[in-house]
């Protein structure tokens, strides 16, 4: 299983997927977030295996 954290919330998803699909599964826009694994940025096309911890970061700010 993949653990995904975003804005303080944790989500568990099925593995063997891509970052883009993880972002879509959480209902987010890939243009509005960045993904990190093991403290490193990864691109949305990266394949994620069965086990991983992914952190999504919102890039949108301002008011």
């Amino acid at each position: 299983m993949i653990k995904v954290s975003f804005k303080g919330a944790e989500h568990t998803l099925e593995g063997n997927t891509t970052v883009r699909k993880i972002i879509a599964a959480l209902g987010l826009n890939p243009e509005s977030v960045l993904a990190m694994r093991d403290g490193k940025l990864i691109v949305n096309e990266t394949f994620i295996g069965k086990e991983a911890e992914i952190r999504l970061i919102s890039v949108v700010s301002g008011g």
Partner: protein
Amino acid sequence: MGYRCRKCSGDSVINMRQHRLALCEDHFIEWVQKHAAEFIRKHRMLEPEDRVLVAVSGGKDSLSLWSILLDLGYQADGIYIDLGIDRDRDESGYSKRSLQYAVEFAQSVSPRAKLHVLDIKAVYGRSVTEIARGGMGAKRKYCSACGLVKRHELNRMTRELGYAVLATGHNLDDEAAVLMGNSLNWEVEYMARQALVLPASSTGLVKKVKPLARFYEREMAAYAIVRGIPYIMEECPFSEGATSLGYKEVLNSMERKSSGTKLKFYFEFLKAKKKGLLPNYVPPELRLCEKCGEPTGSTGLCAFCRLIERPARPVGVDTLE
């Protein structure tokens, strides 16, 4: 096609679809710095000998901007305006947490650069939140007051501290969101005024530049991360529901379907302005405020002085929108 760095085939950390360009950490840093340098030169934002003051908020854009300017060899110091924003009215509020990130970055570049901190409450006796309670309309009064205080104080401090230019961290998404708002409302005068460089005036307005306006917001967040610059990720408590965030959401939805939409929207606007498709912006005749001496289009007091002279309402009479 894999997503390897186009330059070295290493692991890419970002894929910029609008440029059809994926880059590794090192080549992304090199790309950002190269394009920032070209953008600054092309639009005559800064001269090599200029002393630059960077408006620092503790966020990704302003800290990345400060870092880039220092890496490019500019004499760039930072200024943090402590607005005293705090939803829960405690000492560890949003402004204080943001300040910590600005201080941390300043320490990492000391003694090459220094950070000036202006505490609004210490100078004017009230935080921006408290000032906002004194006047202005209801719904967006906090953001309006905040913007007004920042514009006034950043101009004043840049001039008083002897800097040639004030640099702000507006990215392309910020600019495209402003443009979208102005377009939807047919605010042609505001569109004519929206610029990468605002020149200095003889009445005391300092030169203002936006060196990051060619980069997407996503690129600036990535830059801060790969350069190891810690920044405040939480949002200002007053920004919830802000119109500009709605515009950004719409623009990002369009970008998702058609990459390059934001880039084209903004840069074609700049081209249209250059071609004269918008009326020339004629700045209003400015006078000096009777109280603070800052330039203003009004007679008597400037908007800032009128705002801070309004008596504060007792704490607790209204709540955060």
